[in-house]
Structures are given as structure tokens and as C-alpha cells.
């Protein structure tokens, strides 16, 4: 436990010192993207990893968060941070109503339903006059200064995104170790059993769905304030798939999985830049192979391996003590 705490502290210090030690704009940009996406992946992890419902509407919520921030600041002229909070509130309200209906459907139906909802969101953004349609939305303002903190340099963006990521991780840590998190997992394992135990399945699934959409919209709002240009492509089903890929590589249903998976895939994508739009030639088969041979991802696989080793050690210990006892009897 202490070893783990030290490791985490070292990681945190490294993340905090990174912009000072490595003043490379390109690396900072990649890390900022990793931080932003990781938050969305944590969102998907809540509904798909913990509760076991494959949601394909996630890119839609990401886009609603981003567009809400954009429209509220540009068209309505609302101050940045107020719009930021409002964007998340708006998305969670929308997701609440979608969730009420969507969650009455199960497994395949839920996936297809959310896929359709995601596509509807995409089509509305694409066709609507309000969102700028294909042309997109330009001119989203910088995050407004908070007291003495201003957000103009890339370093300040880095720390802002890191702050929200840490907040998300802390929230997820508490969720994982709370009764609520365990309830979600119980629903994933068996809805019928959970119901028999007196868990309100619908209420908990809805809560997971809303939390999931809320995190996606947080990620979307951060994305909007960083990239400052929005196009309908961000609501495309490909984006939902990308988020799912990050989650699968890291380890679905694990706490560290989203961070590790996003980091690895985003960095890998940067290294495979020459592939550009053909990335899926590599990542498509990776997903299939992962599902076939390594369904728990990197973190899940590691946890399994550790659990197995611990079990083996226990058995070995038990048999050796038995051996001693046996000898004692023989004496």
C-alpha cells in the first residue's frame, strides 16, 4: 500500500513538473488532449465498464457539452465559467431524459437505441442553423481568469486540464470505493440478482448514465475551450468508438484503465501519424484481438495476473505448512 502511494505521489509530482522540465509545446499539446479525453473515457467507464450497458451516444454528449459552451459564450454572451457550468448542467438534464427512455431497453436494444440517439444528435448539429452546421462554430473565448490565474499560455492550459483530470480521478476513486460503485457492479453482474437484493436497478442505471454524460460534457466543454473550434464531426459515431477503444485498451471497469489506455492510444496515434485516416486499419484489428484474447485490457490483465500469483503463493504456502505438519507427525 505504501509503495503504491509513493508511486502515485511520484506520478503526480512528475505531472506537475512536466511543463517546467520539458518545455516542448508539442508534448504539452498531446498531454492536454490525453487529459481531456481521459475524462470522457471515465464517463464511458461509469455506464459501460461499471454498469455494463454499452452506450454509443457518448460522442453526442461530448458534443452537446462542447456546443453548449460555445453557443452560450458566443451567442448568449454569458461569462465563460458560468457557461461552463451551465453546459454541464444542460447536458446532464438532456441525458436524464434520454436515459429515462433509453434504459428501459436492454443489452442489444440499448446499444442500438443509444447509437440512434447519437446519430440524431449528430444530424441535428450537422443540419441546424444554430450550430453553424457543416461550417462549425468559431471564436470560443479563452477560459476567463480566476483571480490571479489567467489561461492564455499552453502551460496554463496544461494545469487547467490536469486540475479537472485530478478532480475526475478523485471522484471516480470515491465512486469505486463507495456503496454506489458496488451497486453499479452488482447490476453489471446480474440485473435480476441485484433486483432481488432490493437494489432499484432503473434508478441506479439512470444515475450511472447521467454521471457518464456529465463527465463526457465536462470533457467536451474543456475540449471546446482548448481547441476553440467545433465541427459536427465531433459528434460522429467514430468518436464514440475512439472513446471505447481507449477504455478497452486500458481495461474496462478498472480505475486506472481509462488514464493508461487513453495515454497509450493517443501517444501511439501520434507515432502513427503517417497512417492518418487509415488508423483504423491498425486499431480495428487491435480491438477485435483485445476482445478475443485480452478482454480485460492492460490494467484488468495486470490485476488478474497479480491475483493469480497471490493465489498461487497462498497455495504454495499452505502446502509447505502442510508438509511441515506431515513431517511433524512422522517424527
Amino acid at each position: 500500500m505504501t509503495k503504491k502511494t509513493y508511486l502515485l505521489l511520484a506520478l503526480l509530482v512528475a505531472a506537475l513538473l512536466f511543463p517546467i522540465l520539458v518545455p516542448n509545446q508539442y508534448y504539452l499539446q498531446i498531454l492536454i488532449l490525453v487529459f481531456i479525453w481521459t475524462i470522457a473515457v471515465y464517463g464511458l467507464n461509469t455506464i459501460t465498464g461499471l454498469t455494463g450497458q454499452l452506450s454509443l451516444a457518448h460522442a453526442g454528449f461530448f458534443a452537446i457539452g462542447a456546443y453548449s459552451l460555445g453557443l452560450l459564450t458566443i451567442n448568449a454572451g454569458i461569462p465563460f465559467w458560468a457557461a461552463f457550468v451551465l453546459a454541464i448542467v444542460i447536458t446532464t438534464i438532456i441525458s436524464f431524459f434520454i436515459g429515462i427512455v433509453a434504459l428501459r431497453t436492454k443489452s442489444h436494444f440499448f446499444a442500438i437505441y443509444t447509437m440512434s440517439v447519437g446519430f440524431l444528435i449528430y444530424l441535428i448539429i450537422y443540419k441546424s442553423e444554430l450550430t453553424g452546421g457543416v461550417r462549425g462554430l468559431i471564436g470560443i473565448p479563452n477560459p476567463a481568469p480566476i483571480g490571479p490565474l489567467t489561461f492564455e499560455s499552453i502551460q496554463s492550459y496544461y494545469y487547467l486540464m490536469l486540475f479537472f483530470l485530478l478532480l475526475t480521478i478523485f471522484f471516480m476513486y470515491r465512486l469505486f470505493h463507495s456503496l454506489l460503485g458496488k451497486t453499479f457492479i452488482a447490476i453489471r453482474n446480474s440485473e435480476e440478482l441485484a433486483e432481488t437484493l432490493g437494489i432499484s436497478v432503473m434508478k441506479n442505471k439512470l444515475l450511472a448514465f447521467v454521471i457518464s454524460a456529465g463527465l463526457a460534457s465536462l470533457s467536451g466543454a474543456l475540449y471546446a475551450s482548448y481547441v476553440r473550434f467545433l465541427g459536427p464531426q465531433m459528434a460522429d459515431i467514430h468518436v464514440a468508438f475512439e472513446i471505447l477503444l481507449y477504455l478497452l485498451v486500458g481495461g474496462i471497469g478498472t480505475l486506472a484503465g481509462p488514464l493508461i489506455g487513453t495515454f497509450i492510444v493517443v501517444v501511439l496515434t501520434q507515432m502513427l501519424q503517417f497512417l492518418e485516416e487509415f488508423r483504423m486499419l491498425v486499431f480495428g484489428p487491435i480491438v477485435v484481438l483485445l476482445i478475443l484474447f485480452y478482454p480485460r485490457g492492460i490494467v484488468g490483465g495486470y490485476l488478474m495476473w497479480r491475483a493469480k500469483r497471490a493465489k498461487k503463493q497462498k497455495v504454495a504456502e499452505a502446502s509447505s505448512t502442510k508438509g511441515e505438519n506431515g513431517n511433524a507427525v512422522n517424527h
Partner: protein
Amino acid sequence: MDLFFQQILNGLTIGSVYSLVALGLTLVFGILHVPNFAHGALYMVGAYIALTVMTALGVHYWIGLIIAVIVIALLSVLMERLVFSRLDSKDPLPIMIASIGILFFLESFAQYMWGSQYQRMVTPYGDTIQIFGLTVTMQRLLVIIAAVALMYALHLFLTKTMTGAAIIAMSQSKNGAFLVGINATRVSMLTFAIAGGLAAAAATLAAPINLVFPSMGNLVIMKAFVIIIIGGMGSIPGAIIGGYILGMAESLGATYISGDYKDLIAFVLLVLILTMKPNGLFAKGVK
């Protein structure tokens, strides 16, 4: 009134294509419980194969269609052997994710092989003819006739042959089929082959009307899912009727409501149906 009948005819054409795609999807779903998101990618690759053999080898349209059907049937079986047969059909999440993985691989592959620009498929049936005062291209009539012929052939196969009976038996009760000695591996390979072949045929029939491009399967597959939910997952007549209903609704909706939002119709329909009946209309034993 002419416009109305013209749109009915258009609806029949689109509906025929939708029905063929939904038929394959519902066979695979009803019998093997695989919600195959990659089915639309098979449709798309099918169109490209036909186009490639037609332009590169200069073969006739019908030969191109037959080659596409065979190639895609084999590709579909390969998918079943390599991926779906290895996954537990009781756990939907891995199957859905794996099929999405295949979908994006095939789409990327098509972009890599054939480029992302729109391509036109030329057929010998480009002429227009007059029937009952309506002007239609031969190709549109051909789509309708060929689709009906294919559906009838499938119906004969399923009802008149032993192999077809085995497929029906598997869809009704997996355990019962095992008890009477039906070879499950053979049936599932065959089912995937038929589904892939139907998708390729639908794509090659529709390609001269709709152009060929890498993401051409995406909307079709989403609509096919809508159709099999409307028609009851796993129901063959449901898929056919559902396909025609959606084709008509889109064609008439585009004319009388809004052309911009015609793709919205299917999804609004789905959202409405699942809102009222979470297990789909006509839900049967299939979970």
C-alpha cells in the same frame, strides 16, 4: 398525383434494398444472436468488389454481382470463423464491440484501397422507360424485381430444403436442433454466408442509383437495425415488411415533409417505438 406514384415507386426501390440488408441482419441475429454492426461494411465492400471487377476485368454487370456475392459470402464466413464463433453468444458486450472493430477496419480498408471519393457504377440498364405514365429508369425496376426474386429464392430454400429446415430449426430452438443432430457450426457458417451474400447483392443493385463510397454502409446498417426492431428481431417477414415500410416513409417524407431531414425519419421512428415498447414491436422469444 403523378408525384405521389413516383415517390411510391422510389419507396419500393429503397425499400427493396433495405429489406435485403435487414434480412441478412435478422438471420444472423435471430439464429446466432449476433448483432452484427459490421453488416453494413459488408454491404459497402460488396459494392466495391462488383465495381472493381466490372472496371478492371470488364465483366458484365451480372457477373460482377455474382462475384461480389461470392466474395462477400466468403468474407462473412471468415468473420464468423475468426471472431464470432469464438465469443460467447450470451454476453452481448464483447460481440457488439468486436463487430464495431471489424466495421471500422473494413471502412478504413476501403478508404485505403479505393480512395474516399465517390465513384459511379455504370450499368447496361441506364435507359428510362414509361409505364402507366411514369418515367422510371430500368435500374430502379431491376432493383425491385431482383430483390423480390432473391427473397422468393430464400423463402424456397428455407422451406423446401433440408439445410433450410435446419436453419429454421436452429432459430426456433438451439437445444432442440442439437438434440436432433443438426451441425451448429455448419448452420452458423451458412447463415453468415447467406447474410453476406444478400448484403452484397443489395449493394450492387443499389450502387448505380446511389454512388459508391467508403461510408455508404453506415446509414444503411443503422436503418437495417431500425427495421429489424420494427419487424421483431429474428423475424424474416418482419424484416421484409419493415424494409418496405421504412422505404416508403422516407420517400414520401422527403417529398411531403422535408428532404433535409429524411434520414431522421428512421431514427425518430425507432426512438418512438422503443420508447413505447422497449423490446421492439412484435417481440418474440429472442431476447
